[in-house]
């Protein structure tokens, strides 16, 4: 396994500013994510983490600054173009499509990998049918990978919250991304479920994926991330090794006020 710390930079924020009606959400932020890493993005509530994810995926466009991915500038691109470059994501509060089964959700995630034109798919040509079956099998294997294969034909909204998160991750994997953005994938999960997500993250990294993980659970961050970025009020607080970052007094202050209480950090595990 190549050393992530030495690998090339896959995603880079350079002096990015984004404000909403006078409120600055991301304030001259520069940061980067290296290829093959599991990179943690942490900060208190309202720090601008989700805004960053939305900027990367093109749902928001920065007021100034540049965001580059694999050498390409993202800031003027539409979300679907960015997705086509190989960036995929999940959402803080699960956003699955109502009325679709788990398998259909993941199939939809495979849209970019469908291999045939819409027209051929409509006509149902032999090739289109073969590709469809192939994609379907692939979607099933993704569901298996997140441990949801036996629930494939169930309506996603009838699944439990944790199960929905897994389906959402499988859907995000459908486009065969290079960079996966996970926005608080363990929110609302118990410790057991959370660490199984952590294991999944490692498996994915081992298969060559770069992962940007927005996470509140410090335990998970220190356990699974190889590097991290800490932000508050849209500004960079610390960067680098997770343990070092958390020990940073500024970070401590942002999270806990003036107290330096290691036990409370422990309590967050």
């Amino acid at each position, binding site marked *: 396994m190549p050393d992530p710390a030495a690998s090339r930079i896959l995603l880079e924020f350079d002096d990015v500013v984004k404000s909403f009606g006078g409120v600055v959400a991301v304030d001259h932020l520069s940061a980067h994510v290296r290829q093959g890493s599991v990179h943690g993005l942490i900060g208190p509530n309202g720090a601008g983490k989700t805004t960053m994810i939305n900027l990367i*995926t*093109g*749902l928001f466009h920065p007021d100034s600054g540049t965001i580059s991915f694999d050498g390409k500038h993202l800031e003027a691109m*539409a*979300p*679907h173009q*960015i*997705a*086509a470059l190989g960036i*995929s*994501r999940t*959402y803080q509060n699960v*956003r699955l*499509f*109502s*009325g*679709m*089964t788990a398998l*259909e959700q993941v*199939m*939809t*995630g495979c*849209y*970019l990998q*469908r291999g*045939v034109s*819409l027209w051929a*798919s*409509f*006509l*149902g040509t032999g090739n*289109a049918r073969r590709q*469809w079956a192939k994609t379907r099998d692939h979607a099933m294997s993704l569901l298996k990978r997140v441990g949801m294969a036996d629930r494939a034909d*169930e*309506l996603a909204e*009838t699944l439990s919250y944790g199960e929905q998160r897994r389906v959402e991750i499988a*859907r*995000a994997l*459908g*486009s065969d991304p290079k960079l996966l953005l996970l926005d608080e994938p363990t929110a609302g999960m118990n410790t057991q479920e959370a660490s199984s997500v952590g294991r999944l993250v490692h498996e994915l990294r081992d298969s060559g994926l770069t992962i940007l993980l927005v996470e509140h659970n410090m335990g998970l961050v220190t356990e699974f991330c190889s590097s991290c970025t800490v932000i508050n009020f849209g500004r960079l607080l610390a960067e680098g090794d997770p343990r070092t970052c958390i020990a940073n007094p500024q970070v401590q202050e942002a999270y806990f006020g003036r107290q330096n209480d290691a036990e409370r950090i422990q309590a967050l595990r």
Partner: protein
Amino acid sequence: MDALLDFWAAYGSTVVFAMINAFFALSTYAVLSTGVLSFTTVVFAAVGGFLAAQTVGHLQISIHLSFLLAAIGGGLAAAVVAVAFLKLDSHWMALASLALVLITRVVSLNAPILTGGVNGLVVPLRVDPIEVAILLAVVTFAFYRLHNSWYGLASRAVREDPAVASTMGIPPRRIQFVAFVISGVVGGIGGAALAFTLQFLSPETYFIGIAFTMIASAVLGGSFHWFGPVVGAFVFTALPVMMQAFVPQIEDVAKGVALLLIMIFMPRGLIDPRAVRLRRAARLRHKQERAVNA
């Protein structure tokens, strides 16, 4: 068999109008299934209808060819409309489409060369109901294929959550553009079918009445499944006939009340795949629970 012939003689025309309304409902469904509420089907129907009537009248082309022209005309009109409208947010688009319907009537009143104006337009040919039925079957089959293709999957995603769909690489505006063109083609065909059935067109023919029929049909039948609009169109067309048979004095009121009850008790329409799946899931859970208990 006799009963069937009797039925056809009495209600054949109702069935034909139901089929025509099914085209309009499907046309509305085409855009609705990508999350766009648009009344422009009326406009596409007018384009298709007047185009078909005029080409048959002046160029003496066959009825089949004129159906093709109506489909193309409707599709082209839809492409133009889509380019202008797809910049707008959903609510505004609904309103803009309504404005376009109103303008269509003013235009058809004031462009007698194209539409016959206030005097109306006599359509010399009549379409065979069987041909309408075949055409509807073909169009419905096309919607079935669409539903089960990548486009169908993408359109459902765009409808449920366009932002999420776009981050999965599905371009919402492009899917909606395609939806508009489909809507235009089907609306144009429906307009031509209406022209060749009524055989007399006036500016009133393609107006608010169609807009309400098609939206009500699509939503009543169920706008989450390709077969919903067809069912809705048949129910909505048959409703006045039934009401006339049972409560002739207050048939309009009864029609409104029926519509209201359906909306209150089945807001997602008569054909709702989600409800079916939810019921199936509930049944399954029930069975499992019983198995566990036993």
